[in-house]
């Protein structure tokens, strides 16, 4: 394919996207609107295009295959954030009022920074803020954070599950005593968030943990990995982001550390994190809440009703079914389910953010529902409540074979009983600081 043809196709795509958005605006009334603070350019565009591509394709599937949610069509528009917090806030303000009468259901910025910056606004505007697999850990406590939903997995659950997996691999928790674990973390609030919980887990199980920071963006890690070599850890937990991940794997190999003893967290688990490291990444392990792949019935439906109809959102069709794309699909499933559940209570019509919030808080995705959704193995069982806005807290582990991820474990649950008091304490401190009176979840229906 020639460069000029390629360029022309992209320009044509951009023009059609503009026309599609314009036409969407014409018949948006009576529909349910999803404002998308997406990022398709800039340093994190690979994640943004995959995630928002999967999210949009799932909504497209609901419209095309089902005629919407109980007849209410879904509509959306995008605002480019480039993953920049100020732009994310600007996009939030621009989109929050809905689209031509279609009310906004929820925001899904897929950015810790933007989520933090719009948290108070979301609560004031009564629009749910969805931070699937990320965000503030204490927002799990819905009594203090009624509009924030770190669906599936918060950062504390993430590291707790990793330690549980290491315990399994070592032959039991008692074998963790005396082991050495290093956490190599991104030099940002996101990277540092799990330091206290790892210290608690180290104390509980008797292993030593060393936290080593990699300054953003993480293009140089020689000194960190030489330090790791000196420490001689049994395991390294990688809390990376973007370019930091392949560089970590390359530098691990360069300094002789076995990558099959490096465990990546939820933002170190995509093809884009492992593949650029080349052959040396073979054997690298990471967690996942949603495996890559296209064998799930819901993905088959997207292929049939959306992709083959020429309505797919991905620029590069080869990325269909990759980790970020499937996360977008999972996010779409959970958002649509929240709308569906809320419609059962409030009526089959476009809903306000406040009503959709109720839907999220009553999400109950069991095996039967997963079967109906065609998402068995793609989404874990989730049951949310006023007190628990996370709902799952389980992960599986996958290993990179040089070209693909292979799932190598069953679901490993975080120690949520251990984490809950810590989360409640942090949420209570936040409530005190902000003058929030927590809801009494015992009285919530």
């Amino acid at each position, binding site marked *: 394919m020639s460069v000029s043809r390629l360029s022309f196709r*992209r320009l044509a795509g951009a023009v059609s996207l503009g026309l599609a958005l314009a036409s969407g605006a014409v018949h948006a009334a009576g529909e349910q609107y999803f404002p998308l603070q997406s990022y398709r350019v800039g340093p*994190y565009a690979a994640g943004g295009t995959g995630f928002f591509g999967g999210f949009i394709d799932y909504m497209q599937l609901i419209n095309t295959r089902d005629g919407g949610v109980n007849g209410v069509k879904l509509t959306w528009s995008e605002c480019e954030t480039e993953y920049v917090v100020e732009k994310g806030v600007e996009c939030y303000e621009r989109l929050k009022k809905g689209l031509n009468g279609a009310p906004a259901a929820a925001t899904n910025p897929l950015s810790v920074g933007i989520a933090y910056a719009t948290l108070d606004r979301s609560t004031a505007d009564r629009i749910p803020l969805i931070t699937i697999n990320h965000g503030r850990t204490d927002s799990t406590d819905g009594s203090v954070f009624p509009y924030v939903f770190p669906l599936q997995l918060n950062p504390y659950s993430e590291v707790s599950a990793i330690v549980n997996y290491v315990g399994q691999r070592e032959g039991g928790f008692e074998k963790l005593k005396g082991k050495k674990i290093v956490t190599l973390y991104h030099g940002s609030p996101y990277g540092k968030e799990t330091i206290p919980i790892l210290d608690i887990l180290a104390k509980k199980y008797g292993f030593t943990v060393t936290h080593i920071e990699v300054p953003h*963006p993480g*293009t140089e890690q020689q000194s960190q990995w030489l330090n790791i070599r000196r420490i001689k850890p049994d395991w390294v937990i990688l809390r990376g982001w973007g370019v930091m991940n392949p560089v970590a794997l*390359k530098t691990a190999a360069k300094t002789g550390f076995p990558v099959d003893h490096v465990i990546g967290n939820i933002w170190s688990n995509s093809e*884009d994190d492992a593949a*650029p490291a080349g*052959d040396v990444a073979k054997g690298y392990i990471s967690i996942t809440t949603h495996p890559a792949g296209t064998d799930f019935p819901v993905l088959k439906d997207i292929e049939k009703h959306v992709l083959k109809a020429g309505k797919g959102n991905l620029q590069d069709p080869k990325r269909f079914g990759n980790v970020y794309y499937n996360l977008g699909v999972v996010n779409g499933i959970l958002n649509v389910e929240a709308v569906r559940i809320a419609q059962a209570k409030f009526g089959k019509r476009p809903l306000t953010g406040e009503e959709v919030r109720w839907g999220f808080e009553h999400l109950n995705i069991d095996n039967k529902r997963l079967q109906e959704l065609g998402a068995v193995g793609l989404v874990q069982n989730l049951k949310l409540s006023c007190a628990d806005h996370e709902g799952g807290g389980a992960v599986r582990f996958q290993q990179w074979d040089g070209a693909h991820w292979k799932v190598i474990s069953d679901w490993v649950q975080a120690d949520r009983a251990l984490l809950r008091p810590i989360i409640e304490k942090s949420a209570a401190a936040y409530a005190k600081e902000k003058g929030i009176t927590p809801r009494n979840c015992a009285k919530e229906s």
Partner: protein
Amino acid sequence: MDFFLEVLIGGLLAGVMYSMVAIGFVLIYKASGVFNFAQGSMVLFAALTFVSLLERGFPFWGAFAATLAAMLALAFAIERGVLRHLVNRPPITLFMATLGVSFIIEGLAQLLWGAQVHGLDLGIRDEPLEVSGILLSRFDLFAAGIAALLVLGLSLLFSRTRIGLSLRSVADDHLAALAVGIRLQRIWGVVWAVAGFVGLVAGLLWGARLGVQFSLSLVVLKALPVLIIGGFSSIGGAIVGGLIVGAGEKLAEVYVGPIIGDGLENWFPYVLALLFLLVRPAGLFGERAIERV
């Protein structure tokens, strides 16, 4: 002691990688006085074009030649389309122009080739090489070899060719060069083209090291302290500056980091650069400005 040497040598080799980017800056600054902030974007554009062509079935050298052609076209377009129209403007205007060009190149690169991350394999296994108990990176040694060849090639170009002679005279004094019949704009075009070639080489090495992705354009931030220390107008200075920055940041991270906190690798080179600025404003090998008052 072995550990200290490993950190030191690893830092020196990393510094060579920074120098590869810094050389592109030096070439353009030396010939035209323009601080080309777009050099990082040129590195990204080169690597992204090369790897995208490889993935579309081009053979290695075919992709290299096509990317080189694209880089030359880009370099000429910048020189002709932007900078030629800003001759005799203040340096800050030229700098802002290259800043704008940088964003345009980044945007165009993603529009043209997409936003996904690519792996780039140059066929160099990056397994550790043990020499007298010290682990060395094969890839970094290879990169250092390429950098040495590049510096040698540029030195020959500058010292043994007519075009090199013209380049040196333009670098010394634009007006005097014009007065003796040297076509200034042609020389600038050549320099931008050479900088495009350097960008391609740097892009391939950095792309193989990091993966080809948007963050490649951020390597420019590593080149800035190198330039301040080595001097903006010396290729040798870029190499020495790179070595100082690379070794300094690694040693600081390992030995000072545990005392004052991790993560100083990003800002420590700028501390070094500021110290050099205070003592030697033109850098180690830069030309001191002498003006009649």
